[in-house]
C-alpha cells in the first residue's frame, strides 16, 4: 500500500522521465540480478490505519495490566503515576520527531531540556556531572565499569551480588568483549558482604542502594572496600528513594548510575527506559554519552550545545571508550518534566508514600500464617518475604485473582536471582489501603 510515499503516479512518471528512466526497477540497476528478491517480501499486504489499529488493540487486549492485574511487582520497573502534564508535554511531536541536536541553532528545545535534566540528575546523585542519558540501568552500569577501567588492559570489577540479576547478566555479557573480570560479591542477610571478597585489585566496586531486595546497603562499607584498592565506587541508586535517602555522592560514590523509569515513564514491558549516569567533575573527560553545556550565541544570548564532543565515537572512533550514539533523549525529557512537576516537596512526598505503603503491606503479609522475613535488614519501598508456597506458584495464582503479586526471587551461592523461593513485593504511591487489604487477603487464600 505504501501509505507514506506522497507521490501520485503522475509525479513518479515525471520524476523518472527527468532522470531518463523508464521504470522504478531501473533505479536498482546497480543491484546484481542474482541478488534481487524477485518474489518480493513474503509479508502480508499493507493494511489501512483502522485495520492496523484493530490488530494492535487485539494484541494489547491479550495482555493484562492496570485494574485487571493490580501491580505489586517492582524489581526495577515501577507502577508510578504518570501525570497528564508529563504525558502530554513529553509526547509533543517537536520532541518526539527531532533528531539528535547536531544543529544547535534549531535544537535549543531539546538541548535546554537535557541541560535541565542533567541538573536534576546531578542533584539526585549528589555529583557535579550528569550525562544526557544512557539506555537503561544495566547499560549505565556497564558504561560506569568501562569508565572506571584502566585505559589500557583489562580490569577486575567487584560487583555486589545484590545488584539486579539482569543487570549482572548484562555486565557479564559485555565483559566478554572488554575483557573485564567480573567478581560477584556474595550477600549475607540481603546485604553485600564485602569481607567475603576474594583477594584482588578491583578497578571498580559496584553496589546498589536500595539493592535488588529493597534493602538499604551499608554504602560506607563499599567505600572502604574501594579505598583499600584505590578503586572507583559505583553506586546504583533509585531516583524515587532519593527523595528520602542521602545522595550517592554524599555516601562516597565516584559514579552514580540508576534506572530512571520511575521518573515519568510507564512500565512499557521493560523499555524504553532511562539510564541515569552521574560522576565527579574530574572524571568528565571519560564520560560516556552526550553532554549538554551552556554557552552563548554570536549575539551573546544564552544557548545550549552538546559539548566535550571529542570523547564521542564519531570523532574518536576506535579510541572511544563508549560507542553510544542514539540514547534515550525523549525519556530524559519526560524525566525532566516529571521532576519539575514533582518538585522538591513532591519527590520527598512520593518516596514517603511508597515507603508507607511498603511498610503497611509488609506488616500485613507478615501477619499471615507461614509468612516470614526473607532478610531482616531494613528496606524502604520494596521487600522480600518467604511464603509457605513456592513464590512462582503464588505469582501465577495471584494473577488469576487480578494481582501481579510481585517477582519470585532467591539467593544462590550468596547471589540474588530472579526465580526462587521468596516473593519480592513493591508498593508505589498508586496502591490504596483497600487494594492492599484485598491483596493481602488473596495472598492468604493462595498460600493456605
Amino acid at each position, binding site marked *: 500500500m505504501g501509505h507514506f510515499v506522497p507521490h501520485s503516479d503522475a509525479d513518479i512518471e515525471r520524476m523518472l522521465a527527468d532522470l531518463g528512466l523508464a521504470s522504478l526497477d531501473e533505479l536498482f540497476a546497480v543491484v546484481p540480478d542474482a541478488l534481487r528478491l524477485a518474489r518480493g517480501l513474503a509479508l502480508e499486504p499493507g493494511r489501512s490505519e483502522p485495520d492496523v489499529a484493530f490488530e494492535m488493540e487485539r494484541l494489547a487486549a491479550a495482555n493484562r495490566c492496570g485494574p485487571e492485574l493490580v501491580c505489586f511487582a517492582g524489581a526495577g520497573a515501577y507502577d508510578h503515576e504518570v501525570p497528564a502534564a508529563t504525558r502530554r508535554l513529553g509526547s509533543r511531536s517537536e520532541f518526539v520527531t527531532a533528531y539528535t541536536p547536531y544543529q544547535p541553532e534549531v535544537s535549543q528545545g531539546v538541548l535546554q531540556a537535557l541541560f535541565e535534566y542533567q541538573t536534576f540528575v546531578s542533584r539526585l546523585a549528589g555529583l557535579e556531572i550528569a550525562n544526557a542519558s544512557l539506555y537503561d540501568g544495566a547499560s549505565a552500569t556497564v558504561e560506569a565499569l568501562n569508565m572506571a577501567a584502566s585505559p589500557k588492559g583489562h580490569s577486575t570489577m567487584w560487583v555486589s551480588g545484590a545488584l539486579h540479576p539482569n543487570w549482572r547478566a548484562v555486565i557479564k555479557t559485555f565483559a566478554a568483549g572488554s575483557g573485564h573480570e567480573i567478581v560477584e560479591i556474595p550477600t549475607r542477610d540481603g546485604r553485600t558482604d564485602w569481607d567475603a571478597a576474594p583477594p584482588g585489585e578491583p578497578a571498580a566496586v559496584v553496589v546498589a542502594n536500595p539493592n535488588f531486595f529493597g534493602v538499604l546497603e551499608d554504602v560506607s562499607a563499599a567505600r572502604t572496600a574501594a579505598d583499600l584498592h584505590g578503586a572507583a565506587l559505583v553506586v546504583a541508586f533509585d531516583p524515587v528513594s532519593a527523595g528520602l535517602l542521602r545522595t550517592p555522592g554524599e555516601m562516597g560514590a565516584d559514579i552514580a548510575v540508576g534506572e530512571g523509569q520511575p521518573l515519568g515513564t510507564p512500565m512499557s514491558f521493560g523499555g*524504553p527506559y532511562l539510564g541515569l549516569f552521574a560522576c565527579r567533575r574530574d572524571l568528565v573527560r571519560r564520560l560516556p554519552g552526550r553532554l549538554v553545556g551552556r554557552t552563548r550565541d554570536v549575539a551573546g544570548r544564552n544557548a545550549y550545545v552538546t559539548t566535550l564532543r571529542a570523547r564521542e565515537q564519531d570523532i574518536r572512533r576506535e579510541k572511544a571508550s563508549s560507542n553510544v550514539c542514539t540514547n534515550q533523549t525523549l525519556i530524559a525529557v519526560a524525566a525532566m518534566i516529571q521532576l519539575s512537576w514533582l518538585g522538591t516537596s513532591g519527590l520527598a512526598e512520593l518516596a514517603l508514600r511508597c515507603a508507607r505503603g511498603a511498610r503497611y503491606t509488609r506488616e500485613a503479609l507478615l501477619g499471615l500464617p507461614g509468612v516470614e522475613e526473607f532478610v531482616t535488614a531494613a528496606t524502604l519501598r520494596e521487600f522480600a518475604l518467604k511464603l509457605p508456597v513456592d513464590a512462582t506458584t503464588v505469582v501465577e495464582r495471584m494473577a488469576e485473582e487480578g494481582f501481579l503479586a510481585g517477582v519470585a526471587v532467591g539467593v544462590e551461592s550468596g547471589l540474588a536471582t530472579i526465580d526462587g523461593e521468596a516473593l519480592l513485593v513493591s508498593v508505589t504511591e498508586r496502591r490504596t489501603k483497600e487494594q492492599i487489604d484485598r491483596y493481602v487477603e488473596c495472598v492468604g487464600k493462595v498460600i493456605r
Partner: protein
Amino acid sequence: MTSEHNARVPAPAGRATSAPVMGRDSEATIFEYSSPGRRAWSFRSTGLPEWDASELVAPGLLRGAPVELVEVPERDLVAHVTRLTHRQYSVDLGAYPLGSCTMKYNPKLCDDAASLPGLANVHPATPASHCQGWLELLWSLSNALCEVTGMKAATLAPPAGAAGELTGLLLMRAWHDSQGETRTKVIIPDSAHGTNPASVTLGGYETVTVPSDDRGLVDMTALRNRLDGDVAGIMLTNPNTLGLFEEDIAEIAAAAHDVGALLYYDGANLNAILGVTRPGDMGFDIVHMNLHKTFAVPHGGGGPGAGPVAVSARLEDFLPGPLAQRGDDGTFAWVNPARSIGRVHSWYGNALALARAWSYILANGGDGLRRVAEGAVLNSNWLKSRLRGTYDIPFDRPAMHEFVASTSTLKKQTGLRALDVAKRMLEEGFHAPTVYFPLIVEEALMIEPTETESVETLEALAEALIRIAGEVAGEAAHAPRSTPVGRVDEALAARRLQATWDAVCQPS
C-alpha cells in the same frame, strides 16, 4: 475553485519558514521560574497510615532536607516546556535531509499504537501466560525482520544501533570461540560510521581499515591484502555511507568466508533496499537494523531507538535471550538459546519502540516496504540530478537512498564551506544535511531526502541549495539569523564547562 487555483503548483510541505518565533529572547531555565511553596503535584488518596519518614528510615540514612529540585506550578511548567518545543526543529515541522539518519515522516498511527494502555502499562515481569499479546508481537516482528533481511533468527533486545553492533560483535566472538579459534581483527571501510570502530574496540577486537576505491566502493585488492586467518569479520553498510551499492558484495562475502571470517551488515542504510534485495542473500551472517531509521520509529531528539540483530542459521544458538517463541499449541513462551551470549538489556529491549515498528510494518506490508525503498531511491536520485552542476558530486554513480555532494570547488571559488551551507539551510526553513561525513570526502554534504518528501519539497530543497551556492562570498558565514539562536560558541562551552544550572550559579 478557479482554474488559476487548479493550475497552481502545490506549496512545499517540507519548508518551515512560516514557523512562528515569538521574539528573540532566551527561554529562562525551569530553575528560574521556581519560587518557594509553589507546586504542581498531587497524589492518590490511599487511606494508609501517615507515618513520618523518621519512623520508616534509620536516622543515619535519612536526608536532612529534601533534594532541591524546583517549586513551580503546573501552568508555569507547561508554558516553559511548550516554549522549548517552539525552539526545536522536527520532522513534523519540515524536511530533515540528514544523510545516514533516515529522518522520514513518523506516521501518527504508530504513536497511537505505542500508547495503548494494554501495551504501555504492562510490567516486564508479568507471567508469560498474562502477556501473550506482547510475546506474540515480539515474535511476529522478529519473523518479519528476518524476512526483510533474509536471516534465520533475531533478537529484538539491543536498544540502539550501536548496541546492536556490539551485540553482533559478541556473537562473532562467540562463533569463533565455538570453532576453537581466537581471532583479533575486524575490517571496516574508511567510510564507516564512527560507532563501527568504537564497537569493534568494545568487542575486544582491533580495527583494520580498508580504503575505498575511485568508484567509492570497497577496494577489492586492498581488502584481499588484509584478509587472513586473524580476521574475525568484516563490517559493511550496503548501500555504503556514500549512498552507493557495493556491487562486489557477493565477491566480498566469498572472500570473507574463504578465510573463515563472518560478514556483518550495518543496517543504517537498509531503507534503500527493502524488498529489493536482502543482506542474507548477499552473504551476510549478522545484521543489525535501526528501527528508528528504516521502520519509522521517531528519533525522539536522540532516542530511544531500537537495534535488533538478525543472524544466519549457524549463529542462531548464540543469540541473546530471552526470545519469544510460539509453541505447537499456539501459545507463546520465553526461551533462551542453547549457547546464548547472555542478556544485552535489563528486560527485552525498547519494547514500545518495537510496537511502533510492528504497526509500521503492518501498515506498509510487503508491497508497501518495497515502495518505501523505491521512493527513497527515486527522491535521492532526483534531488542529486538537480544539484549536479552546482555542487561537486564526488562519486557520481547511480545513488541509492542518499548521495554525497561537496563544496570543494565552491570553497576555492567563493570560500563556501559545507558548514556554511548547513547553517544557511536552517534559515531557508529546512534542517541541514549531514556535513563533514563520510570523512573521505572533503566539505561533504550528505543528503538523504527520504521517501516521505513530496517533489515540491525536493524542488524547494534544490532551489535553496542552488541559491546558497550562488550567493556573494562570505554571505553564508552570518547564517543562521532567523533561528531561535545564532551560531553558538562551541569552544566556550567546552572551555567554561557549564553542564548544570548549579555550575552556572557557582562558576568554579
